[in-house]
């Protein structure tokens, strides 16, 4: 098998197998570290400070199953009259599993009329997203939603 006449075939087969293996690995292994729920908590504290967080008033909608984690629609609604003296000031989206816990921060005010924001996010796997809203009186409110991210069959890269 060490005969050089063999090498082109062996080399080709190996190169191919190596390339295929590399592709498969790249598809299976996340190339980055994941954030932890603790890191998500830390990111929330970094954005909003140490005030207590109340559960409620924030409604988060995600599809029950996401066909692909690259683009998942998220709808956020906060119970607020959005008046001059009682409105939502900021909203943050946080992930306990993405490489970076903070996904987005929105700033709004009474001009919005309605505290409602939709966007599309990346989810590195099944997880529960947390959404925090900061009101004009400084109080913090939290909501969450879970989605199952399914794995595609023939992921190329």
């Amino acid at each position, binding site marked *: 098998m060490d005969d050089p006449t063999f090498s082109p075939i062996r080399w080709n087969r190996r190169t191919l197998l190596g390339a295929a293996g*590399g592709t498969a690995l*790249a598809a299976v292994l996340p*190339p*980055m570290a994941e954030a932890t729920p603790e890191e998500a908590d830390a990111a929330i504290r970094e954005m909003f400070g140490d005030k207590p967080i109340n559960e409620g008033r924030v409604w988060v909608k995600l599809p029950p199953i996401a066909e692909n984690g*690259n*683009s*998942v629609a998220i709808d956020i609604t906060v119970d607020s009259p*959005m008046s001059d003296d009682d409105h939502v000031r900021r909203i943050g*989206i946080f*992930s306990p599993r*993405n*490489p*970076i816990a*903070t*996904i*987005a*921060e*929105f*700033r*709004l*005010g*009474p*001009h*919005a*009329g*309605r505290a*409602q*924001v*939709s*966007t*599309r*996010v*990346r*989810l590195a796997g099944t997880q529960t997203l947390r959404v925090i809203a900061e009101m004009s009186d400084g109080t913090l409110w939290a909501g969450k939603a879970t989605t199952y991210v399914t794995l595609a069959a023939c992921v190329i*890269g």
Partner: protein
Amino acid sequence: MIRISAPDTAEMGEIVEVKAMIQHPMETGYRRDAKGDVIPRNIIKQFRCAYGGNTVFEATFFPGIAANPFLAFCLRATRTGPIEFSWTDQHGETWSETRQLTVS
């Protein structure tokens, strides 16, 4: 490319929904190319919507926002004036698009 959806007219005090989408890869900085080299991060960092010259909605994006970022939010129609949408990437380049809202 930029897509904007906003009404041309509204009644005084009406709450209107506006939508915006921009063509951008939102490259996370975690992907590798065919040679195994890391593809550098390249994302839109800021989105701003100004109505009649005042900022009414702002967003800060991180790599967890999907490619070709999409946003929908609301505005209360209070006066006739321009609605300006602008995006700024991590290098400071800015794109913008303006729509006129007539309030009756």
